[in-house]
């Protein structure tokens, strides 16, 4: 019988990560799409780094940062009694970094694809930037928002290198599905490994089907795939 706990843990991690990411990515995407700040290019590059970096590199640096024996980790431990290395909250923070580009990039693309005069028209009607964002811009990039959310959800479910470095595979806390699969293979338990693999495979396939379905419906390709 399959142990469902790692799968539930993966789902919980993905759900929390996606919710936080959406809240972060909308203002961030808005800034990236419309600001003329000179540091914008640098910010875009940093946000997209996890797309090209080996996940273990990100995991390694986060592990250093979270380590309670030095720097930021020690400060957190000292002042707030918070430890992030090998804990679930640590996994959430690592996932936020890791999946950030998958939420932000479709949203930036969505904002940029809207005609500039849509925003201008709302301004000439006396509306604030906030009202314009909520009532005009967001409803018109709904497909990008859904794509961003679905992609970050799926990407978080599929992450391995980062969770391995940061989480270490503690059952019930940080042992997510992809790590469980790895453990089963390590202990030559191929049957169980196969079950995890199949569930993850089916899940990823359904997610991608969903994303392409949304894109076809809106008639525009807004994914970063």
């Amino acid at each position, binding site marked *: 019988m399959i142990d469902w706990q790692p799968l539930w843990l993966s789902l919980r991690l993905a759900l929390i990560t996606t919710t936080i990411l959406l809240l972060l990515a909308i203002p961030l995407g808005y800034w990236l799409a419309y600001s003329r700040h000179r540091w914008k290019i640098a910010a875009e590059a940093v946000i997209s780094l996890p797309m090209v970096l080996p996940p273990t590199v990100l995991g390694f640096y986060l592990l250093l940062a979270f380590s309670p024996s030095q720097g930021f980790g020690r400060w957190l431990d000292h002042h707030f009694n918070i430890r992030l290395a090998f804990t679930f909250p640590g996994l959430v923070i690592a996932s936020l970094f890791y999946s950030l580009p998958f939420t932000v990039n479709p949203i930036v693309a969505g904002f940029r694809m809207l005609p500039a005069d849509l925003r201008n028209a709302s301004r*000439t009607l*006396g509306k604030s930037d906030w009202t314009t964002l909520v009532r005009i811009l967001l409803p018109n990039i709904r497909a990008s928002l859904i794509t961003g959310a679905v992609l970050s959800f799926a990407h978080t479910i599929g992450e391995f290198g980062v969770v391995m470095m940061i989480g270490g595979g503690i059952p019930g806390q940080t042992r997510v599905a992809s790590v469980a699969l790895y453990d089963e293979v390590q202990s030559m338990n191929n049957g169980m490994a196969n079950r995890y693999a199949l569930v993850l495979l089916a899940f990823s396939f359904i997610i991608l089907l969903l994303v392409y379905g949304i894109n076809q419906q809106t008639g525009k390709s807004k994914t970063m795939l």
Partner: protein
Amino acid sequence: MTDFDLAPDNLPNPPRAHIAADPKPFLQFKATKTLHTTSGPQLLDVRFELPKGGKLAIYGPSGAGKTTLLRILSGLTTATTGYIEVDGEVWLDTTRRIDLPTRHRSIGFVFQDFALFPHLTVRQQLEYARDKTTDGKIVAELLDLMELESLQHLRPALLSGGQQQRVALARAIARRPRLLLLDEPLSALDDEMRYKLQEYLLKIHLHYELTTLLVSHHLPEVLRLSDKVMVLEKGSVSREGSPSALFFAPSQNPSPAPFQTVGEITAIAFSEGNYIITVLCAGTLINVTLTAAQAAHLAIGKKVWVTSNDFHAVINPLV
């Protein structure tokens, strides 16, 4: 000394010539900005004034800075230097670092491509635009005035160009702005539709006592919709004045003809010693028979002014 012998000293103060300062114009505008055109940088340097209720057309070739001028006025583009005052309120004063954000300027802007919100129905567009402090009846009134009632629950994608234009116009007016700014609003439409929409525009202008600025490179439209024209060329005003003074040669003007209209020659045919000139005026084709001498300076595509007196039509080329 008689009663009639009034020494000058006894006179009440003679009425002095009334030299009251000119009442402030409703709109004062002056601005400079460097434009980046295909033929290199070019300075936009424009100043003008407009009385309340005025209808100013800004006419000129593309790239002259017409749209930029409207955008500076609405705050969508920043001027290098400038001063804008509307109805006593300063919108822009670069020397005092005043630059009122667009949303605080009382304008209705009709964009060239209409810029309707794709996800809102016609009625929702107007509801969104309406100033929430004003009477909600304006939405119903505009739907009625612009004949949009039957379309009010449709989204823009399902509307024709002319219908979208009417929605854009109604939306711009829903907040009861002080200024109505039109950026080539009819350029996407065919002649017949243009003519109809000009009617709507005139109706709206009168009904809501608007002060209107129209950017256009379509001469018939300018002549119909404005009472003052400013010709903008290479960033500065080359000529300005009333439409008739500006575009008709002095010899042609003014002749109180019972019928006069402006159009464009679409065909010239030769028949029985005479030329038959076909002119497209406001969606209708007019045939005028002329002698060879009269037709000598006419060519297809030329913009002309057609007048008729006692059943004789005359075609005058526009200057």
